[in-house]
Each structure stands twice: as structure tokens, then as C-alpha cells.
């Protein structure tokens, strides 16, 4: 798919995110906006998957796990726009009895979701587990997962990182949403990650970096990551993003991590984002 076409989808995804969180006055727009470009690329270009025939087992399909489950709005929008469920369902986000729970869950049977997430730090282990099963099953598909940078403060991430390299789990591509922000402020201030690339390298991973808002650069980097798979090492992409990307007053701060825009702010934000596929 052309970069321009992907960018148009991402613009619609950003509109979806803002409208979803604004309607219920809750949810996490900042990180969602920051990962809109990457998830659009994954679901519309990179992954081999079948939105019309979702199965929990996902045999012979690429799998994706969202470890930082609070950015559910971007995932739900991308899943709906990719055809997993009707886009009209986005209007039920966080409402009673909705399949679109505040954080992703499997209990309401929303197509596209294979694991609950929200309590941080578990998704890398989950992705590695799914990757192990793919190896046992002789399934050559890949497993993708996304993590927040603040999430890397959870110890389990590093248990999983150690395990994957020691056991040559080389069918996993983890991506870090490296926006430098978390609820209480800048990651650097709250609890510095130090030299993140060197940490992953020391844990035995192939480390790539990319700009999470540059489609062509992401295409090239993910293609490189795919080529690195199967060589005995897991792969991580440190993806530089801007929390709140696409909405001028939401960028450059951690303040929009978990705060929804009010109606006036929403109107302002939507004015900055082209409606390309039609609002739900």
C-alpha cells in the first residue's frame, strides 16, 4: 500500500480515537495517537492475517499482542478499519456491556483480541509463549507485540527478554513505543531507562530504531526486522514517537496520557485531522 494511503487510514484512526475517548470522557488518547501510524502499517501492510475469519489459535497467521493495553482506542480503531468488526461498534467503547472494554479483553469475544492486557509487563511473555507454540506447530508466521516505554520499568519484561534470547525465540518482533512520557511525567524523570538500546543488546536482542511517524522508514525497518528473524535472536524495534501526535495541543506533554478532550477540544483536534474513510 502507498504511504499516502496508509497515512490517510492513520488520519481516520486518529479521528476515531479522539471521538471514542471524548464520547465517554475517559480513556487514553495520548499514546493511542502516538501509535496510530505504526498499528496502521502493521495491520494494513505488514501482517499476514485474516480479519474476516478470526480464530483464537491464529494458526499460520501473524499474531499481534498489545502489552500496553491502555492504548486500546488505537487498536480497536485499526481492528475495525481492517475489518475485524463493524466500525459502528467503536461507538460502544467503554460503555456498559460493550465488547470494547476499557482495556482489551477476550471475555466479550471481540474479534482480533487474543489476550487481556492492561496490567503492564505481561505481554512480552505472552508473545514469546505464542511464538514458542508456533515453533512447536511448525508455523513459520511471526509474532508482533507492542510495549510502552514506561512499561519497561516492570521487571517481568526483563525476565521475558532474558528468556527469549537464551532460548533463541527468533520469531518475535517486539516494538517499544518510545515516547518518553508516562502518567507522572517524563520517563527520564520518573525512572530513567538509561541506555535502552544497550540494555536490549545486553539481553541478547537484535535492536533496531525507527521514527514511528515516518511510513517509509517504518516499512524499511520492519522489513529489516523480518529478515533478522530466524537467525537465533529475538528482535526489538525502539520506535521514537510523539505522545498525542497529530493534534498540536496534545503533543509535547504527558498530560494527555489518560485525559479525554472536552467537546471544544475535540472540535479543535478533529479540525486538524482529515476524515478519510468516513467517521463511524
Amino acid at each position, binding site marked *: 500500500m502507498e504511504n499516502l494511503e496508509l497515512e490517510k487510514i492513520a488520519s481516520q484512526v486518529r479521528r476515531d480515537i479522539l471521538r471514542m475517548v471524548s464520547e465517554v470522557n475517559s480513556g487514553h488518547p495520548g499514546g493511542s495517537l502516538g501509535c496510530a501510524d505504526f498499528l496502521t502499517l502493521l495491520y494494513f501492510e505488514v501482517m499476514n492475517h485474516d480479519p474476516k475469519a478470526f480464530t483464537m489459535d*491464529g*494458526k499460520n497467521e501473524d499474531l499481534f499482542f498489545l502489552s500496553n493495553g491502555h492504548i486500546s482506542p488505537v487498536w480497536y480503531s485499526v481492528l475495525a478499519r481492517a475489518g475485524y468488526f463493524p466500525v459502528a461498534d467503536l461507538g460502544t467503547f467503554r460503555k456498559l456491556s460493550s465488547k470494547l472494554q476499557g482495556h482489551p479483553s477476550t*471475555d466479550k469475544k471481540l474479534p482480533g483480541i487474543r*489476550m487481556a492486557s492492561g496490567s503492564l509487563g*505481561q505481554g512480552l511473555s505472552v508473545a*514469546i509463549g505464542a511464538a*514458542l*507454540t*508456533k515453533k512447536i506447530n511448525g508455523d513459520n508466521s511471526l509474532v508482533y507485540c507492542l510495549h510502552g516505554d514506561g512499561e519497561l520499568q516492570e521487571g517481568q519484561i526483563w*525476565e521475558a527478554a532474558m528468556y527469549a534470547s537464551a532460548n533463541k525465540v527468533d520469531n518475535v518482533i517486539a516494538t517499544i513505543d518510545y515516547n518518553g512520557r508516562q502518567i507522572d511525567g517524563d520517563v527520564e524523570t520518573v525512572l530513567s531507562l538509561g541506555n535502552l538500546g544497550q540494555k536490549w543488546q545486553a539481553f541478547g536482542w537484535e535492536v533496531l530504531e525507527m521514527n514511528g511517524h515516518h511510513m517509509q522508514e517504518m516499512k524499511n525497518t520492519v522489513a529489516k526486522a523480518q529478515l533478522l528473524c530466524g537467525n537465533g535472536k529475538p528482535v526489538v524495534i525502539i520506535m521514537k514517537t510523539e505522545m498525542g501526535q497529530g493534534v498540536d495541543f496534545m503533543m509535547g506533554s504527558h498530560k494527555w496520557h489518560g485525559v479525554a478532550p472536552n467537546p471544544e477540544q475535540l472540535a479543535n483536534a478533529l479540525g486538524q485531522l482529515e476524515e478519510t474513510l468516513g467517521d463511524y
Partner: protein
Amino acid sequence: MKEFEILGNKDTRSGFGEGLAELGRTNENVVALCADLTGSLKMDAFLKENPERFFQVGIAEANMMSLAAGMTIGGKIPYTGTFANFSTGRVYDQIRQSIAYSQKNVKICASHAGLTLGEDGATHQILEDIGMMKMLPNMTVIVPADFNQTKQATIAIAEHNGPVYLRFGRPVMPIFVKPDAKFEIGKADVLTEGTDVTIIACGHLVWKSIEAAKELEAEGISVELINMHTIKPLDIQAILKSVQKTKCVVTAEEHMMNGGLGDSVAQVLAQNYLAPQEYVAVNDSFGESGTPMELMTKYGIDTADVVKAAKKAIARKNA
């Protein structure tokens, strides 16, 4: 009273090891994960015969639980193995989110549960695990009584699609369940029929209760003894049928009084049929170092305690 033939003496963890080994031969979807306790969990035979389906995760239980959850995607049936303490409290949130809430087909196999872990002391003697696990929606909780039943339960849970907590222990105890008995999740075993008092026990306390029942019968007290190997889903019909006959009950378990089998039984009685109940369980206390049998005596979960509780329950009924 019916005589219980002692078929041998073994630890329940060895029953798990044998059951897992058999599954390795009969069910290609079964995989096993262990956090650096392969020998203690008796997982060696499975490892030897199925090295490609055995995953040594090191001392990283949180990772193990979430790995297991992920491995179910694609059809595997993961059995995790570590001590009960590290199978529950240490990893409660991983189990809660990735296994119970996500309804994953993981079998959490927990050894060295309770006081009878012995000399290692209170850091390792978890007495809250049944409570933690039974509170989780979607979780099945099983506490088999002896070696044979642990083996049978280990095999049976592979056929149940959903999360299971299987709790067993370290000490060598008498075997009394027949090797060809069929294990049915949620179906209590009525070991002896009686009319004066119902004793409902699980795990190692089932044998202690058999011993207690013999003493009580010798004194002319008729005991109905139920092996409640499944704490959840609880066999409510078996409880009510028995207590409506005997009109009083003793619950016996190697667990904290708060939140264990006894509380589950009390809930059934409170909602359906009021009757005096006495608890044989640890009363809001951590354990300590000692031999398994010394600890059972000191903390009030021995044969004599079951006998005493039965007499008290009967006295309350007749008061």
C-alpha cells in the same frame, strides 16, 4: 466402618509426576514449564521423554505464567510447575489477567503446599493459595487426597478446557484411592456413609480424617466422610445431602481457616441449610520450621483435632 486398605506410601507430587509423564505419552498437545524445580516437582520423566515439549524458564515465575498463557494460543495445554507459594501469591496478577480473565487453558500445578513442606519454614509454607485461586472467576481448584488421586487428577484436567489450579504436597502419605478410580472434576467422593457427623476434607487431611473416623467409630460415633477433592466447582449436592442427614459438619484442610474449603462449605450451609460447623484449619497464623507431622500437630490440623472437632460439632447439634 469400611476398612481402608493402605496401598502404599508416596508423596502426592510423585503422583503429579507420573500423571504428567503419562500425558506426555498420550496427549501431544501437553507441554510443561518449570521454574528451576524440576526434581522437586517430579517432572523429570516428562522432560526425559519429551525434551522438545519441556520449557525450563529459570527462576522467573511471572514470565512462566504469562508464557504458558501465550502458549495456549495455537492449541497447546501448558502445565506449569513450581511450589504453591510461587504458583499463586507471587504471580497472582499474571494468573488473574492472562489466565483466568483471558480464559486460557493453563494447568497451574503447585507442589509443597501448606505446612507439610516442613523444615523450609513459613516463607515457603503457603496457606492462602486455595483462597486466592478460588476467588478467581473461571478457575477450577483441585486438591487431591493421595498419590493415586493426584495422578488421576493430573490426567483428567487435560480434558477440561480452562484454567485449573492443582494443589499437592511434599510429604510421603498413605495411598488409599484405588489406582483405577475415575477422577471426575466437581464430583465429591463419599468415602464412608454415616449418620452422626459429616467430615468434609481435602488433600492430606483426608487421610487424617480417615484415621479420625476410625477413632470416632470405635467410640460409637457414625461418621460420613467426604473427600472434597474439588474446591471449585464445589459439589453442593453432596454437601447438602450429607449434612441434611447428619445435621452437623467438620471441614478439614491444610490451609488457612480464612478462605479455604471450610469457608466454601459454610457458604453453602448459610445459603441452604443451617447446621453447626467446626473448622480444622490453621487459624490466622504463619507456619514455622519443623517436620511435617510436628507442624500438623502444633497448628491443629492432625487426627486428634478432627476427632475433637467432630465431637464438638455433635455436641452443638444436640445442645
